[in-house]
């Protein structure tokens, strides 16, 4: 089982954004994509999900083209529907699939992300961290094989961010999925990932794939942790 990105290229008019991206992520493992702002990370995720067409190359999951129903997408901005409560936002993807048990299933996921008390709140009544959790829950609710996460924690303060990272790993432990997590925060990548894919400046190429073999929960101050951080920092500069 694996998610394979094969030689994917993409330009917007004259602007070359992705330049022959290739990497492979093992099934049910956690991969981070790191690269500086504007290098094409969101574009890459949109291509993997099928929202955008690549000019060249392909994306395979278990040897077959990725189907949009296999993918749960967590957006850089939370993109919740302001007129839906927490529960109904989480149920959105299930409703699209005409799932009769949409609300029941949404309630399960609501518990998983620890928002039971906020079931009937509207997005504008939630904190930034809670909103991101709703966004994650909405993606998890459809039980996707692949979870694409686009800098979901970028807008959060450092403390909330660290807590959300730990929570995300817990959820991932329970709900084994192939996760592709985009970030430009090195610390976040080393804390979360089994494998880190480092992208170059635009047009993005894969500079290096780093396997992170540290035991979880990881100690952000350990020598190995700091070592990997340093290596990525050098690759990015």
């Amino acid at each position, binding site marked *: 089982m694996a998610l394979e990105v094969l030689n994917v290229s993409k330009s917007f008019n004259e602007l070359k954004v992705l330049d022959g991206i290739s990497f492979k992520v093992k099934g049910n493992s956690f991969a981070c994509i790191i690269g500086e702002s504007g290098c094409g990370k969101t574009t890459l995720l949109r291509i993997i999900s099928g929202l955008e067409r690549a000019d060249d190359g392909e994306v395979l999951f278990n040897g077959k083209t990725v189907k*949009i129903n296999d993918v749960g997408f967590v957006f850089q*901005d939370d*993109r919740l*529907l302001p*007129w839906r409560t927490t529960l109904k936002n989480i149920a*959105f993807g299930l409703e*699209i699939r005409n799932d009769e048990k949409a609300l029941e299933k949404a309630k399960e996921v609501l518990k998983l992300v620890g928002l039971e008390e906020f079931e009937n709140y509207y997005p504008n009544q939630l904190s930034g961290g809670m909103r991101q959790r709703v966004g994650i829950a909405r993606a998890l609710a459809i039980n996707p094989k692949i979870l694409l996460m686009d800098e979901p924690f970028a807008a959060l303060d450092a403390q909330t961010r660290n807590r959300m990272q730990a929570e995300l790993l817990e959820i991932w432990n329970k709900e084994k999925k192939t996760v592709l997590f985009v970030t430009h925060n090195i610390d976040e990548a080393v804390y979360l990932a089994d494998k880190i894919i480092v992208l170059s400046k635009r047009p993005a190429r894969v500079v290096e794939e780093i396997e992170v073999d540290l035991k979880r929960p990881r100690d952000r101050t350990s020598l190995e942790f700091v070592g990997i951080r340093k290596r990525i920092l050098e690759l990015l500069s």
Partner: protein
Amino acid sequence: MRVRFFALCTFVLFWYVIVFSRIVELPYPHKVFLVFFCLLFHPEPVLGKTLIEHAIASIFRVLIASFIAFVIAIPLGVAMGWFERLNLFASTIVEVLRPIPPLAWIPLAYILFSKLSNPTQTAQFFIVFIGAFFPCLISVVDAARNTPSELIEMARAFNANNRKILSSIVLPHSLQGIVTGVRIGLGVGWMSIIAAEMLATSGAGLGYFIMVMYEVGGRIAEIISGMTLIGIIGYVMNLLLLKIERVVMPWR
């Protein structure tokens, strides 16, 4: 609240000053006040109807004609917001018709519908329809077009087809525009009916009442009473719809 009370007092005081100064001929506020309350419940002799009955006749016309206008304007507006081609087509026509005030349609309407069994009523419905339709349509189109593309993309990422996107993203996003459109449409419709009633014998209606009171010999107190009720009803309708807005959009 105190400011509002103060504003009303200032208004009445100003009115007294004008009467005392004899710049124009005007009855005292307290006299109009008395006539107003009397006419609310006692039939006025010329037309044999109370002000309340006249008001109900006008309100009835506005509600029917505006309702028809909204039933067409709302779906059309959402569709125009979604299909760029339709928008280009329809807005070309709308932009030509929209600047024509509803009142300018009155003569034409009375001629156009003169052969029908109930020409006056039909013409009045038509004029209110014109008044209510365009503001509502414009407001709905605007709201629908402003649906964030991010939300539409989100729905696509969850594999929503166009119908689902229209019903679960564009339509709810347009709700603000729909409610505002209904509120403004009703307001314009209300102004239009009063004007339309003035130009033809309609038996009842606040506009008709005012006109008749003028024609039988300038009965100022009666005329101002009618105007007052027109103002009050317009104000209450607006207030009611603002309240409804909070009920249908609890997330605001």
